[in-house]
Each structure stands twice: as C-alpha cells, then as structure tokens.
C-alpha cells in the first residue's frame, strides 16, 4: 500500500496510458486512411528500406546516394515519426509481397503497425497531461484534464492517425514540463533541449516553442531587468535556453539521415517549403477561404465550435480566471466596472486575488501555452487549412485550465452546506467532472471514426456544422463508411473513382482487404463506372461533373451522419432518360435503400 501511495501519480499515468493505447490500438483498423497518412505510410515503407540497408550493408547505408534513394520521398516533413513507423512496419506488418493482397488473417495488421507509434505517442500524451495537471494543481485536476483532452472527439480522432499532430503535442508538452523543472537543474535543462529537439524532429510547430518559453521568461523574470549607473542588468537566462539552442538543432540534424549530406541546401528546401506553403481552400462560416488575409477570429471560432461545450466553458472560465488573477487590479477593476454597469454585485479586488495555490510561473506557462498557438494561426497571413489540428498542442493546457476552473467552482461551494448533505469537495468534484465529461463521451460515440465532422452542442452538432457552413471533412478517411457497400455491390472489375483518395490509400485499401482486389482504380469520374464523392466545398464541381455524366442527381448509396452527407456513391453508367445516347447500359442492380 505504501508503494501505491508513494507512486500513485505514476500508476494513474500508467493506467491512463495503457487504457488509451488499448482503445486506439483496437480501433486502428476501423478508421479510414487519411490522405496524409497515405503519403506517410508510403514514405515509411521507403525508409524501412534504409533500415534494411543499415542492417545488411552498414558500410554503404551512410552514402548520400543510398540515403537519398530512400529518404528523398516526403522530405517536406522531419522523419522521427515516419522512422518509427518504418521500424514498426518491419516488425509487425505482414511480410508478403507489397503489391499483392494479404491473406484475410493478416488484414488490418498493416495499418495497425503503421499507426502503432502514433498510438504510443497519444497514450504518453494523455499520461503527461495528467502528470502536468497533477504537478501544477492537483491529482484530480490532472485526471480531469487528461480525460477531457482525450475524450474531445477531434482530439481522439487525431490521436489515432499515423500523422504528426498528436506526437508533436506530446513533445511540446514534454518540453514545457522539462522547462518547468529546469530552473537550476542541469539534468532538466538538458532534457528540455533534447525534448525540444525531438519536437523539431516531429513537426515544424516546435519552431514556435522558444517564442512561448521566451515570453514566459520575460513575463516572470521581467521585473529583474534594471538600468542604473552600473549599466543594464538582465535576469539570469535559464540554462534550458542554452541547452535548447545546442541540443535542439543537434537532435534535429541527427535524426534525419537526408540532412547528413548537403545539409544547408536540404535544410533550406525544407524551410522554404513551409515558408511558401500553398493555401489549401477551407470552408468557414459559409465562405470558402482561399487566400490571405484570413479572419483573425478563425482559430477561436473553430475552437469554440469544436471543443465539447462544457469543457470549453470551463476552459474559458479557467483561462480568464487565471489571467485575471495574474493581471490583478486593472483586469478586475475593468471586470467590476462592467459587472456594476450590469447591476451585478461583485467581490472586492482582494477577494478576487486569492491564490489558487498555483505559482505565478505555472499560471503563465498555462496561459501562454494555451493562447500563443491559437494566436499564431490568427495571424491573417498564416495558412489555416487543417483546422484545429494546427493548435492541438494548446489543448492539454486548455484542459488543465478547465480542471482548475472546476476545482475553483467546487471550492466556492459553502462547506457547511456540503457537510449537511454529507458531501465532500472531492465527491462533488468527481460527480461534476463526470457530468462535464459525459457530453464529450457521448459526442465521441456519436461521431465514431468520422472525427472531423464533429461540432459541439453550441454549433448544433454535425448538422449544425453543416448549417453554419463549416469544413466537414478534408482527409478522405470518411470513404471507409461506403467501402463495405462498394465491395458488396460493384460488378467484377468495375472502375472505381474514390474522390480525394490518393493512389497510396487506394493501394493500401486493396492490399489490406478493405477494397475488393478486382476493382480498378479510376482517376476521374469520367473514366469510372462508379464514383464515391466526398463533400468538400472546394470540390463541389466534382459532384456537378458527376451529375452532368449521370444526367440526374440520383445517389446509389450514401454515408450520412445526422443526415449530413459525408460520402456519396454514384453509379455513373446507370441509364437515365436525361442522358444523351452513347452511354453503355448498367450491368447490375444494387439493393434499394429500403429500410436503411
């Protein structure tokens, strides 16, 4: 018992990690492949070739020609996650011929292997959210934050993907946690540098982390700047910053074999790719955003509509509450003035400044890490495509602020009345936490594997998102919902166009048994017998081309969530009176939609 008591936090973190990993690992084969995963799994298979080379011909594996042969592909992203996918692929994927179909008993193993590193990263991330929440506040705050984080349907969706968003969230959080402990510690400072290097090795969001930590240092230590006759005095610069400066780039360069030769040119290409990144079109409040300037409110509105409402409310209370306590009198005076104008009686400033028990440094760490990632996307020239995944690394901090806010609300309950009701604050906290998290869980169950379609209760759910004209999907994974129908109903050898599904994903679907082996890939609706169209505001003309081909607008089969169409299957060769002559007759009849 003593051991459990001493290591309770570690054991809870382990439990959270194991549970998260178990759920993600079990669900991995059921989630459709996203477009980006198609590119990354393809890249990982190439990188696996280099690891084979390294094992078989270690002398040659470091030659530029050999490295380039394997690492030229998908050089626009660092390779830490893809290298792990490559190793997982070598260890766990079916070993048969890459281009053939795997036997039924091995189906799903490929995608499970490719998503395994992401599952691990996500599981660790949930554990770290708990540990960080427990460190800055309390165990119950940490537990609430971890659950609020992973149960948010958008977060859960991204947690499953063989992509970089959840891994970089983990690395960002780990760096912040190490930095927090690094004040006078060489060990934690070195760890800060290493974790930031790993973050850089995952995704470029990490380039912005020094901005956040630098701001944190300026705010918390800014008072120690002084200018006197003896000159300008600086507060002590944290050791962690030096370690980041040295170790960050070092880890980044070491992890990426492609940068071992012709380093500056290749690094320049990588940076230039992202500095000049094309703006993919994005639907937002009924408008198609195409070119900058983009609305500054975009990340805030999307967060307000895609984080479960109770969690969002608590995050807002937590954020502004902590901010108010940090800014102190001017903030509260302003608030009180507003409240009095509204006829509301308010507390005194002294009451409002009561401590939560959380240190000033921790408070700013939470505030800055919640706000800055959104602020970066709010800059009108920054590309906005991809939605909330680009500020996913802010969400652990937002969820901790939610847990803190809940804690404060429970503390505000009159103790005597609780005693009369035989309630303890802990019991009330647990009950309220359950009530707050229940909508997240219900929303998650409701949208299932179609996570990008989730909009919260404020938006009106999935249908509300469609009414508001918000981006519904963008990664083609929702096509998985119509593949069983396609397998069951398409004639042998039919040409199939899966809108937005790239060649890599099509190949994977066939190889892993999600698509029948005899179906042939078509590249356009015009060259197909059947087309599955995914609604995407940018590509509505694709559906209109299909109508033009079909002669009418009849859908053969569809995937709908709350009546909102996600994937629609059209029988292009179906006879229609509106068609001109020259179309071949359809060769099959599929079941009527009756009873579905």
């Amino acid at each position, binding site marked *: 018992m003593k051991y459990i008591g001493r290591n309770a936090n570690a054991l809870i973190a382990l439990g959270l990690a194991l549970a998260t990993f178990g759920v993600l690992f079990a669900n991995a084969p059921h989630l459709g492949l996203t477009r980006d995963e198609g590119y990354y799994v393809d890249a990982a298979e190439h990188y696996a070739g280099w690891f084979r080379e390294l094992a078989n011909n270690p002398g040659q594996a470091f030659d530029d020609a050999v490295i380039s042969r394997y690492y030229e592909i998908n050089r626009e992203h660092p390779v830490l996650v893809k290298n792990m996918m490559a190793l997982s692929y070598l260890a766990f994927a079916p070993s048969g011929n890459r281009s053939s179909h795997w036997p039924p008993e091995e189906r799903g193993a490929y995608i499970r292997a490719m998503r395994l590193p992401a599952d691990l990263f996500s599981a660790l991330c949930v554990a770290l959210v708990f540990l960080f929440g427990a460190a800055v506040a309390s165990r119950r705050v940490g537990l609430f934050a971890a659950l609020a984080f992973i149960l948010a349907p958008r977060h859960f969706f991204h947690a499953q993907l063989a992509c970089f968003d959840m891994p970089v969230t983990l690395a960002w959080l780990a760096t912040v946690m190490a930095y927090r402990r690094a004040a006078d510690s060489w060990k934690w400072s070195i760890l800060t540098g290493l974790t930031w290097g790993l973050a850089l090795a995952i995704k470029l969001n990490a380039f912005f982390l020094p901005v956040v930590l630098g701001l944190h240092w300026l705010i918390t230590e800014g008072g120690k700047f002084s200018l006197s006759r003896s000159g300008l005095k600086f507060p002590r610069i944290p050791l962690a910053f030096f370690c980041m400066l040295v170790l960050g780039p070092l880890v980044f360069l070491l992890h990426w074999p492609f940068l071992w030769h012709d380093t500056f040119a290749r690094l320049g290409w990588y940076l230039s790719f992202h500095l000049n990144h094309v703006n993919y079109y994005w639907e937002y409040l009924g408008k198609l955003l195409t070119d900058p300037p983009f609305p500054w409110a975009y990340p805030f509105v999307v967060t307000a509509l895609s984080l479960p409402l109770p969690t969002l409310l608590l995050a807002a209370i937590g954020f502004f509450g902590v901010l108010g306590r940090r800014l102190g009198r001017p903030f509260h005076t302003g608030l009180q003035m507003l409240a009095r104008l509204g006829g509301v009686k308010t507390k005194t400033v002294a009451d409002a400044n009561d401590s939560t028990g959380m240190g000033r440094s921790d408070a700013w760490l939470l505030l800055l890490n919640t706000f800055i990632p959104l602020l970066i996307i709010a800059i009108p020239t920054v590309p906005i495509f991809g939605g909330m995944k680009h500020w996913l690394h802010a969400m652990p901090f937002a969820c901790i602020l939610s847990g803190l806010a809940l804690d404060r*609300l429970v503390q505000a309950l009159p103790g005597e009345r609780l005693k009369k009701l035989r309630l303890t604050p802990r019991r009330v906290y647990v009950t309220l936490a359950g009530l707050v998290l*229940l909508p997240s869980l219900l929303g998650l169950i409701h949208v299932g594997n179609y996570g990008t379609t989730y909009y919260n209760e404020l938006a009106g759910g999935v249908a509300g998102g469609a009414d508001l004209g918000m981006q519904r999907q963008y990664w083609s994974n929702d096509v998985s919902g119509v593949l069983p129908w396609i397998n069951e109903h398409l004639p042998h050898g039919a040409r199939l166009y899966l809108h937005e599904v790239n060649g890599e994903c099509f190949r994977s679907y066939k190889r892993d048994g999600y698509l029948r082996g005899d179906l042939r890939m078509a590249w356009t609706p015009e060259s197909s017998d059947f087309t599955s169209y995914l609604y995407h505001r940018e590509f*509505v003309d694709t559906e209109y081309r299909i109508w033009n081909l079909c002669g009418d607008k009849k859908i053969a089969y569809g995937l709908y969530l709350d009546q909102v169409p996600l994937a*629609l299957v059209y029988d292009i060769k179906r006879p229609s009176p509106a068609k001109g002559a020259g179309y071949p007759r359809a060769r099959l009849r599929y079941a009527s939609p009756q009873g579905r």
Partner: protein
Amino acid sequence: MRLLPLAILLSVSLYSTGFWIVDPLLQPSGEDYLAAESIVRQNWQQGDAVIVLPWWAARIREYIGDLEFIQLRNPQAEDWSSFSRLWVVSLPGHRHDLFTGPFGHWTHPRLKEIQAGKLTVDLYDLPPPARVLYNFRDRLSDARVSMHEPQGPRLCSRWVENRWVCSRRDWNYVGRMIVELGDDPRKIIWAHPADYPLEIAYPSVPGGKLLRVHTGFTPPAARAPDGAPVTLRVLMDGRELGRVVQQNLTGYFPAEWDISAAGPGPHQVTFVVTSPRGGMRHFCFDAQVRG
C-alpha cells in the same frame, strides 16, 4: 452570486448531455424517406420541381434524385418561372427556412402539407410558368460553333457526348455542363473564350416574346486577380439584340431582350463570346426563347 458559474456549468452540461441523447432520436429513418418518395412520386406532374431543406440534405436524392431536383441555398430568391409547382422536403427544424419572401406572402400558396414520419413534404403552387419555346442549352448539338482566329474562322466540328470540341486543350470546348455559379450548381453552356472570338450560331430558332440569358463566371475564374471581363453579344438574323459585359464575378446574372417584333421566325441566333485576355475565363451562359 458565487454559485452562478456553477449553475451555468450544470445547465450547460445537462443541455449538452441531452443534446447527444435526444438529437439522434429526431433523425428521420429510411421509412420516412420512402414515405416522402411515395408522396412526391404519386402526385408528380409535368412542370414540377423538388428541393430539400436544408440544401445540404442529400439523402433524399437516393430516393427522388432522378426527378427534377434543384439544389439551392436560397430558394426564396430563385426565379421559379420555369416551373408550375414546387415540392419541398424538409428535415425537422428546417421547414421554416422557406417561410419568407414569396413563399411567406402567399404569392406561392401552399397546396399540400404532409408529414412523412419526421420529414415534412410541402407542395407550393407557383405562378403560371413561362412558355419556353427554345432552350439553347438543350439544342446545343444543333449549333454551329467556331473560333474566329486571325487567319479565319475555325469550326469546332467534333461533337463528343455533350460538347463541341474546339482543340485538344481540355477547356477549349462549348458544352452542356453543370457548374457552380455563385453558390449553386447551374445547368449552363460552357463557353470559355480563347484569345479569339467564340461564335455559337443556332440556325433555326422560333420567335417569341423574350430572349432571356444568364451569365456568370465560375468561382475559380472570378478569383483570378487579373481576370478580364467577357462580352456576350447576342445577334438575331445578323442584327445585334444586345450585349452583356460580364465583369469578373461569380453568380448567375440575368438579362433579357424583347424579340416580339422579330416575328415568328425561324431566326438565326448567334452568340459571340469575346475577352481581351482569355486566361481563366471560365465563362458560362444559358439562354431561352420564351413565349
């Protein structure tokens, strides 16, 4: 006062929980769609059209997508003069979207209101439809299409499926298309001008009261920062009826000319499409002679 935030949190949590429990119960079933299909099909007449509210609710097209289904974001503002009656299938909570404009003021009275499970099927009577004597889009295969290059006119003589092909360039044709103009899909004639005038001549068009056209650019064309205007000249028996200068905007813009003085015909009607710069000029139009 200090319990107010807690009360708000409790209310929001209960509402949110209720939302995910109740919302699925409000969704129409397959049987509801079948019932709606049956109502529409049994009462369908020539000149009817059908829309769905909200506009994105595509599932009904599994059942009646072969009928004259119109997808519109704003049906109140639409010109319904080609149709005699309008069927409206509504999802729960969306039916009232239509109760403004002519549908709210009894200009278009409601003839039927039938519940099909959780779907509602309404039938509206529209003012007597215009008599369309000639639809230029439908009769495109009768047209003679040519490009007026400096060295002389070049005939686009190859008809493939739904278009006159003018060259190997994949945009260089005059064809029956459905494209997005403004926010909605429109049945139009694609007439992307190159650097030379594009001429579409119909040899035998009956006379009538009005010649009506709609013009517009597709959204990608309208986004082109240096997109030049396109001029559509309309000639009847060699005499210019009028012209539309389409500025670089997406939309579905109407224009019409009185042709009653021209007599019963047949007439030769020619559309000439020109632009000072042909790049990204995804120009589209449709035209009708109305009686």
